[in-house]
């Protein structure tokens, strides 16, 4: 598929082309590079002899931008890369949301409510990510894992993590 050949009928075709893996990867690299260039806009660059804070970061961002463009162009030209990410797994949002949420809440809660409750929270939210876990199974898994982590991290390694909430 060549860029110019497409008739005007298809906004969907444009979308399809943009959703190719290499195209998305190229855009991702370019996005990170542009973000980096923007963030480092005020970093002193210095000279090659006396490199400032911004010398290496800006150099790397420009290289990444170039590579991103290359990947993008390759993706647009390569007709084989038609497989779009969305066509493979549709329910991807579920693990993404719940796995991430369980970790975030674990991180925010561990210092406030201690190890035991934050593990319960992590398992409770994390279990939603897979659809085939039954409530009782989850509870059993949580209890086993609490005992296990208490044994390894508190008893065995003597880490200073609060176990219970401090009232």
């Amino acid at each position: 598929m060549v860029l110019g050949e497409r008739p005007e009928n298809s906004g969907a075709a444009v979308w399809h082309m943009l959703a190719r893996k290499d195209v998305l990867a190229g855009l991702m690299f370019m996005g990170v590079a542009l973000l980096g260039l923007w963030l480092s806009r005020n970093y002193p660059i210095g000279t090659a002899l006396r490199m400032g804070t911004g010398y290496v970061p800006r150099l790397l961002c420009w290289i990444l931008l170039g590579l991103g463009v290359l990947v993008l162009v390759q993706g647009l030209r390569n007709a084989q890369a038609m497989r779009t990410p969305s066509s493979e797994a549709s329910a991807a949002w579920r693990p993404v949301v719940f796995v991430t949420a369980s970790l975030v809440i674990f991180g925010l809660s561990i210092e406030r409510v201690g190890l035991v409750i934050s593990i319960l929270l992590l398992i409770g939210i994390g279990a939603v990510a897979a659809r085939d876990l039954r409530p009782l199974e989850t509870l059993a898994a949580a209890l086993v894992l609490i005992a296990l982590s208490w044994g390894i991290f508190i008893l065995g390694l003597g880490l200073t993590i609060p176990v219970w909430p401090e009232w």
Partner: protein
Amino acid sequence: MDLLDNLAVGFEVALTPANLLFALAGALIGTLIGVLPGIGPIATIAMLLPLTFHLEPTSGLIMLAGIFYGAQYGGSTTAILVNLPGETSSVVTCIDGHQMARQGRAGAALAVAALASFFAGCFSTLLIATFAPPLAKVGQSFGAPEYFSLMALGLIAAVVLAHGSVIKAVAMIILGLLVGLVGTDGNTGGTRFTFGITELTDGIDVATLAIGVFGVGEIITNLTQPQETRALVSQRITRLWPTREDFRRAWPAVLRGTALGSVLGVLPGGGATLSSFAAYALEKRSSKHPAQFGHGAVEGVAGPESANNAGAQTSFIPMLTLGIPGNAVMALMIGALTIHGIQPGPQIMTERPGMFWGMVASMWMGNLMLVIINLPLIGIWVQLLKVPYRFLYLAILLFCGIGVYTVGNSSAAVLLAAFFGVAGYVFTRLECEPAPMILGFVLGPLMEENLRRAMRISGGDPMIFVQRPISLGLLLTALVLCLLVALPAIRSKREEAFQEN
């Protein structure tokens, strides 16, 4: 003789009860995660990295090393019995190993795999002991320009030998280098890419990045894929010992596999996976009965299994002698060293002979333990395969969480790991291999430091990199590698090497 003296020092360290225990722990954990599909050595070592902070550095390294080569043993068990590779390095073992199992020769296949691995492990440990000291001497004569060029070569070679798109892999390296810059610039004191977040001024810990991208990212990826049905070979494993005919056919394959794996392991980007694929191709091509491959040829198990273990072991050579990681696991090892304030590089061998030789000696002990763990106790590991992934991922998720938290008792690190988890999932979906990113991340600060030093030596003239002969040679090698990949003939060969199904 020097070698014997050194090994004596090593065994003195490796045979202390504590270090034996950590070698055993590493071998057990390695076998466990090797057997279980869905969790690999990179994620496991990342999760356990923060814990080694509480151990002696030598003990910590011994355990982490045990996990890496232990996983090569365990991976073959799953490959043979279930036709699922426990690790990517045992993908090719599935082909003939599982066929042998279906013909009722599972025991023979398992024994050949374990003995081949053991032989390769012993041989490559000797190689490390022989070649590490001279290599470290070479490394000690390097100045900043040579080091910069060596790291550049290492990074380029790592992506050339890995599979997938080279441009994307280079981009992932640059991304890793950028993430490595987050925090305070040691030379100027300025902060970079911290988004105004206080917790980021100290930089990102390698464990946080690796647990996020590999641990959490793998969980999300696995959960989005439909569950494979695990077809366990049901009949009991009766006869463990291979036949005389098996031995006769297997031993030349073991020798070839060990040699090939040892060479490929030293190269950056090499290591276990590449070695096993290459060894399978070699066996198939050099065999008098190529038609038997895919139908239970014992060479197809012996060759790759010895190669992946040899490759796993020899990939320690550049890490230990030059401080250059050839693959993501070695990058994490360097992270473990830096946690303890040990500067990786050629001086390790002279400054900490106990640590270096202790680790080498422990590898031999670990391999011996692994044969015992894997052969008589095979039944226990097989039982573990019945644990469904929906329980496994909860445990992995929790260990990721606690592991990251203990890096610096910091909640921010957990949030950061969650972010990197999503990033890792996105990378996998976009077919951007995340392993080169870790290499870039670890080498980033070192490269910047050496670049600065080289520039100070030359007075700001970049020509210094081509005026020094060793540096020029290293850079030319990198350039040749890049050109080779661009050649269509080589490119198709490279893709062929990773497609053996």
